């Protein structure tokens, strides 16, 4: 019997390895995601294109514009005439236009002397991109008013992520997502394909117990996921410099639980779906969407409307991602995330039980 089981595992592995393109893509997806999030995409706003309208290019104006141009948050796009403001904003040539008052120098002088004056600078923003507009306003205020003096009153520190890399936050999210993709989606599709082509029946009439056939199907995907897991952790540590000071063993242990959970989800989908197309669509709608939207991967859970915050509790990825963030970035030990662990374990056991039961029911 043992021999039979191994030969099934071998058959499944060969089957998967033969489709080189899919394998390549599965291995590439995490790497590309890590590189993109690590180096290409930043949720922070910088390189804001700014244009300036100045009726008179006085020394005061030039000095202020110099400060703007030298600031790394801005890209100075040049002086424009009053009439071109709207066009520049509309076509995206500029995100912000700074308009200096006609007698800027004199008014600025009066202001420093304590004489009340009307506004001397007008900032017009393309607010269609809200984050960009908000950040631009804040940056411009501090640059133009020389608010540096005030900044000196504060001593600021960014805990856990001093360089403010947005990648840190995304690494656990990527993991939560990839494992569902590999384990749940690929397993379900491959089981359903065997159902569609009729080879499943051939396997089921063999003397091997059905549960073993299912496990044999899962083992190769489990192995792939482990390889992906190690790849991601290595990239996270050495490419992105995620600290992981809480110890790697806890990260591995919890990830294994999550892998088991994803596999059971895949099995469950395969018992529901009749065709590959249905399996793909169910995986995409019922598993991918909630993970992308409700797990805190892209959008912080506390920003969600109350109703969705409640729903997010039943999304397993949410707990996994939460725990991973604490362990990988904040460097907490596994003991500190016992609640998340317990929830994930509970979900895994119940999902596995339900899907095995459904699978066996289908056989009878």
């Amino acid at each position: 019997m043992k021999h039979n089981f191994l030969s099934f595992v071998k058959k499944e592995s060969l089957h998967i390895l033969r489709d080189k393109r899919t394998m390549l893509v599965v291995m590439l997806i995490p790497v590309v995601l890590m590189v993109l999030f690590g180096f290409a995409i930043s949720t922070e706003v910088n390189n804001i294109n700014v244009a300036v309208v100045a009726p008179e290019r006085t020394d005061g104006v030039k000095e202020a514009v110099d400060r703007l141009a030298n600031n790394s948050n801005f890209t100075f796009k040049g002086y424009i005439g009053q009439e071109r403001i709207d066009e520049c904003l509309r076509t995206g040539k500029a995100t912000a236009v700074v308009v200096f008052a006609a007698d800027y120098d004199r008014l600025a002088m009066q202001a420093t002397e304590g004489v009340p004056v009307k506004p001397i600078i007008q900032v017009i923003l393309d607010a269609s991109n809200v984050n960009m507009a908000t950040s631009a306003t804040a940056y411009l205020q501090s640059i133009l008013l020389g608010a540096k003096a005030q900044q000196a009153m504060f001593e600021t520190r960014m805990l856990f992520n001093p360089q403010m890399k947005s990648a840190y936050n995304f690494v656990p999210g990527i993991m939560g997502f990839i494992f569902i993709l590999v384990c749940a989606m690929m397993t379900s599709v491959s089981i359903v394909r065997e159902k569609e082509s009729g080879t499943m029946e051939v396997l089921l009439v063999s003397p091997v117990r059905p549960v073993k056939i299912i496990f044999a199907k899962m083992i190769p995907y489990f192995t792939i996921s482990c390889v992906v897991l190690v790849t991601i952790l290595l990239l996270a540590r050495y490419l992105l410099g995620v600290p992981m000071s809480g110890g790697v063993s806890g990260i591995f242990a919890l990830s294994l639980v999550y892998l088991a959970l994803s596999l059971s989800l895949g099995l469950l989908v395969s018992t529901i779906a009749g065709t590959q197309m249905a399996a793909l669509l169910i995986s995409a709608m019922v598993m991918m969407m909630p993970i992308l939207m409700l797990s805190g991967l892209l959008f912080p859970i506390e920003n969600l409307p109350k109703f969705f915050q409640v729903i997010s509790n039943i999304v397993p990825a949410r707990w996994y991602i939460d725990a991973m963030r604490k362990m990988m970035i904040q460097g907490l030990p596994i003991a500190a995330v016992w609640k998340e662990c317990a929830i994930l374990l509970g979900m895994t056991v119940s999902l596995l039980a339900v899907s095995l039961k459904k699978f066996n029911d289908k056989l009878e």
Partner: protein
Amino acid sequence: MRAFKVLIQKEFLQIRRNAFLPRLIIAFPIMIMLIMPLIMTMDVRNVNVTVVDLDRSTTSHRIISHIEASDLLTLVSSTAEYGLALQALEEGRTDVIVQIPAHFGRDLAVSTPKKISINANAVNATKGGIGMQYVVQTIARTLAEVRGEESPVNIQELITTENRYNPTLNYRHYMIPALMIILFILICGFLPALSIVGEKESGSIEQINVTPLSRFTFTLAKLVPYWIIGLFVLTIAMIVAWLVYGLVPVGSIGLIYLSSMLFILVISGFSLTVANFSDTMQQAMFVMFFFIMIFMLMSGLLTPVDSMPRWAQYITYFLPPRYFVEILRSVYLKGTTLVEMWHNLAALGGFALLFNTLATITYRKQV
């Protein structure tokens, strides 16, 4: 012409008979447009603040009450012990810790006081950064006020700002055009590929290949239904955006449809090309997924292209959605005109031609 007509009829019959697709085509856009704008908020609000007040002066109380009064900040607690605050931060109950040093209020009046220390949880860099900004601004304003009681000029008032095109800074308005693009990518990107690979798997494509039908007609007949479906989906999405979020395009509706038509051609052509190289649905799905992932992350849908490093910005020139994101957002929110957007439209047209030519060439009737 007759061949084209019967093929189109066949595609629509097949879509209609499918148990999933018609529902998907109607329900998916409505659902996405209803739910996603509520979820996709990357703007930061509700920053939880804990104040460690070692000063206990009128100034420090004033700072605390200003934090409490701010729309964006929520005061979780005020304690005298940094340890407790840090624990709250680790457990996620608070995002930012403000520590006001002893004798701050007294020192402020006479000389330079010790610095106020502000620590933000930067696990989520965006939230940490913006949260920090809010807190610094709020406290700076308080301090300016405290000092300003001696000086008549409020420095903040020297600058006025005008938030054009979206005066209420409604983040949803920014995301709605992006959602429409996501809908196009998902529906017109995945479905054509699945449809062709499905025909390969079922063997019916062989029956087609043995007829004199030209590859061009076949490819076109696969494109046109998704073209129509895409425009239908766009219409639904625009109606929902108008009814639910009160957002109507500032620019020309004709231009929106024109650019959408081009974009659907691009994405469906790409999808067909991928399908021509795939033998199984799983393969097609994963390859499509790989590209769609890059499209969604790098073309400015979620994060601005301008904020990317230079090398990444060069890559975006090869991503067709990048051009469409720019068009749709500008036309929808800012009323940009055809003339101002012609180079983006031309780029889309170029990609449409490229991918559909590729889809036609790579479709092999004889191997």
